[in-house]
């Protein structure tokens, strides 16, 4: 046997980098080997990029900087280990997105990052093992796919945002999983467990395979699914499921729903009829990007942008900041079939179509949860459907479709599509769990209240009071006029979600129940 040396860097043995962001890989190698930006650049950089020390920040998504073959040799990793390390792998290369006027005037605004967040976002459990997945950076994700915990871009110690997702322009590449402001680092240098790596590998491989399938469909290579077409086309779930739920995306997306299920079960045991939490803010641009707010905000956006509306009017277009979201949503309008009566669409809430849910994906746009009934009749597409092609100019229809194709932005497509499914499924579950409540109560009134009255802050105040006084329960006096039955329960549910102890919440629930009975 010949003695063949294998050239390695420190820290590479027993490390499977699959799915980790390339910034994390480079940063960890630099840290473990005491290499600065030039040192690591000389080892893994391409010929013209022998350093990561540049005047401008270097984008980790720039593949031309790193010699991936060399990087693979150093860690004895296979060639495809890094395919899942770049955000560009998760972008849909269908058509070039049409740029908004603002972007066209300022080319620097065009992000090369694909669907990535600007600042580093971490899963606190992955950070213990010094792991930062590219999934943590992807927009539209709120949870870590491995540990199923909420991602955060805020340091838990100093509450400032983590550094940008770029190579530093300074000499030293800082660790990805550390705070650049206060040096917070929760890395205890542990080895990533095999089970975590297995989950990650399985998830990412399935996800990418699924994405490839969707890409084929969008590139019209798979003719079994047609997005925009005549109403005669049928889109049964057996086919659409290839696109919509994704491999484990559903699992990730439904994390909050599963929490809701637990909550509802708990509520039923308590004899309460608690409505699950719904997003309490809509279109709030100034919403702080805290984990608590982000989930609700994302869902709200997805609701507005993705839910199908039959027919678009100029007024609606003007009411949006940009027509982009709206047009993207329009791309997926034709999942409706077997709607017998026009009135059904108008009068029945969408969740009453649950009978079809198993087979059909029914999508409607709602503005602040209220269907825009008056615009439906104006839709050219709707007219086409109802009255046949004679009443619609054929070229107009074609132009619409071609525009839509152009407007399919890679980033927003994924966000809109998947999150709309999330929203729908979540509400479907809620409906199944709390059917009685939904039918009896005035949901529109509740929702309009919810959109104007946030419950998170009062809930925090209550819990802060409980913590400060070491009490197990709080007696909450409410204004009868201003607060609805459902709003109170929402407050209790929120307290349960963020509260410190179950016992405290049980007592709070009891008090609230009494209060509600008085109301």
């Amino acid at each position, binding site marked *: 046997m010949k003695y063949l040396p294998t050239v390695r*860097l420190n820290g590479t*043995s027993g490390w499977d980098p699959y799915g980790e962001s390339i910034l994390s890989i480079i940063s960890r190698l630099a840290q473990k080997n005491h290499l600065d930006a030039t040192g690591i650049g000389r080892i893994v950089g391409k010929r013209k990029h022998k350093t990561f020390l540049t005047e401008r920040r270097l984008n980790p998504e720039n593949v031309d900087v790193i010699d991936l073959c060399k990087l693979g040799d150093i860690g004895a990793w296979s060639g495809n280990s890094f395919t899942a390390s770049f955000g560009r792998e998760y972008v849909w290369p269908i058509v070039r997105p049409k740029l908004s006027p603002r972007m066209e005037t300022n080319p620097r605004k065009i992000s090369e990052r694909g669907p990535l967040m600007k600042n580093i976002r971490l899963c606190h459990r992955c950070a213990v093992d010094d792991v930062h997945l590219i999934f943590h950076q992807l927009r539209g994700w709120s949870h870590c796919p491995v540990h199923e915990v909420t991602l955060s871009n805020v340091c838990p110690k100093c509450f400032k945002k983590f550094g940008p997702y770029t190579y530093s322009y300074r000499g030293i590449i800082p660790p990805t999983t550390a705070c650049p402001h206060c040096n917070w680092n929760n890395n205890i240098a542990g080895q990533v467990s095999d089970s975590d790596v297995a989950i990650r590998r399985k998830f990412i491989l399935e996800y990418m395979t699924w994405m490839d399938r969707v890409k084929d469909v969008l590139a019209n290579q798979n003719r079994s699914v047609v997005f925009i077409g005549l109403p005669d086309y049928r889109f049964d779930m057996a086919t659409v499921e290839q696109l919509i739920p994704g491999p484990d995306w559903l699992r990730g997306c439904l994390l909050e729903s599963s929490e809701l299920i637990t909550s509802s079960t708990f509520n039923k045991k308590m004899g309460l009829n608690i409505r699950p939490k719904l997003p309490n803010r809509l279109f709030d641009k100034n919403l702080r990007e805290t984990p608590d707010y982000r989930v609700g905000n994302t869902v709200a956006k997805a609701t507005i942008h993705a839910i199908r509306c039959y027919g678009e009017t100029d007024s609606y277009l003007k009411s949006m900041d940009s027509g982009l979201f709206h047009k993207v949503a329009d791309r997926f309008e034709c999942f409706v079939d077997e709607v017998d009566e026009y009135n059904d669409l108008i009068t029945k809430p969408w969740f009453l179509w649950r009978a079809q849910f198993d087979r059909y994906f029914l999508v409607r746009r709602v503005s602040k949860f209220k269907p825009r009934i008056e615009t439906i009749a104006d839709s050219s597409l709707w007219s086409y459907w109802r009255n046949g092609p004679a009443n619609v100019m054929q070229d107009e229809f074609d132009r619409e479709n071609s525009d839509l194709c152009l407007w399919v932005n890679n980033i927003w497509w994924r966000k809109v599509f998947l999150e709309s499914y999330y929203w729908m499924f979540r509400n479907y579950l809620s409906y199944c769990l709390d059917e009685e409540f939904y039918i009896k109560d005035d949901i529109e009134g509740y929702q309009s209240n919810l959109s104007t009255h946030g419950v998170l802050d009062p809930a925090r105040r209550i819990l802060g009071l409980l913590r400060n006084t070491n009490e197990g329960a709080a007696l909450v006096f409410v204004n009868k006029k201003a607060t609805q039955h459902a709003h109170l329960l929402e407050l209790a549910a929120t307290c349960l979600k963020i509260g410190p102890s179950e016992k405290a919440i049980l007592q709070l629930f009891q008090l609230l129940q009494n209060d509600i009975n008085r109301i």
Partner: protein
Amino acid sequence: MKLQRSMRNDLSDHPIARDQAILPTIPMEEFVNVVIDWLDSRLTGGVVWGNQRMGKTQAIRYLLDHGTQVLGAPIPTGLFSVWDPTYTSLTENRFFGALLSALNYAAPLTGTAAIKRQRLLDLIAERVVSAKEYRFLLFIDEAQWLDNVQLRYLMDLHNQLKISDIRLVCILVGQPELVEFRASLRSSKQAHLLGRFMSASHQFKGVTTEQEFKRIAYAFDEQSEYPAGSGISYTQAYVPIAYQNGWRLETNIPTIWKLLDNCLEAERLPKCNEFPMQALMALLVWLLSQLSLEDNESLDLRPELIEEGIYRRALIQIQDQISLQVSD
């Protein structure tokens, strides 16, 4: 004749033609046993010395290749070759850089001496931890050139690793000057170095008896194989027809041994106590390559051919060895 020529072409890639063959010999077995003994005795270092061309480096390579099987544990190993110490080549930076390079680190030349030292400690620690061991076996070849300063660098590594519960075992392998070096350290009472790296010693000898020479030939006949898994021994590869008819190199060793003595007498040289391994290997390979030209069922190794081989391939190295023997 055509067949033989084609066979010769095939044999150009043979390990013994390319001087890559490592055959188990008695001195090698002794060396391995000594290393195992030292590890079991929890020694942190020892000296293995012997004359040049005796097969010391080959023995180290054998241990590196078969470490886990031979030592009975997956102890991570490394081979570091010392260079001639001069004023400019004894810097800490050069030492740690060379050691990193010897341990196959990807960036041995980047950074300052302090950084390289830290990388080296990390490297050794990582390999030991990943092997679930607590020892790192470092062979230092040409150790007679080691300088006191370099030994102190090693001592520093040894101490730092000990803090992490890792034992660095250094086997210093070199020529007889190594014994003098050890004596000089002893005379200067540098016990901290002696205790760490030179607490035991072993002489690596060449071929001293006919029996040992027979052991090598036996390895050629029976204990070797190329290509891997083919079942073809080295002797069989060179003289397949004769081998099939029972011809073995081992049976000709008494004749070769006798003729070696005769040649030395004819050259008026004293008797050689310790034949260099490399000389005998060269002789056997030359004989086999000559025999491959006349391979037949009744192959006979003629004394004239052996004498020619001794004069052409072995005598110069044996003369060198004898001259050292006389000077001792």
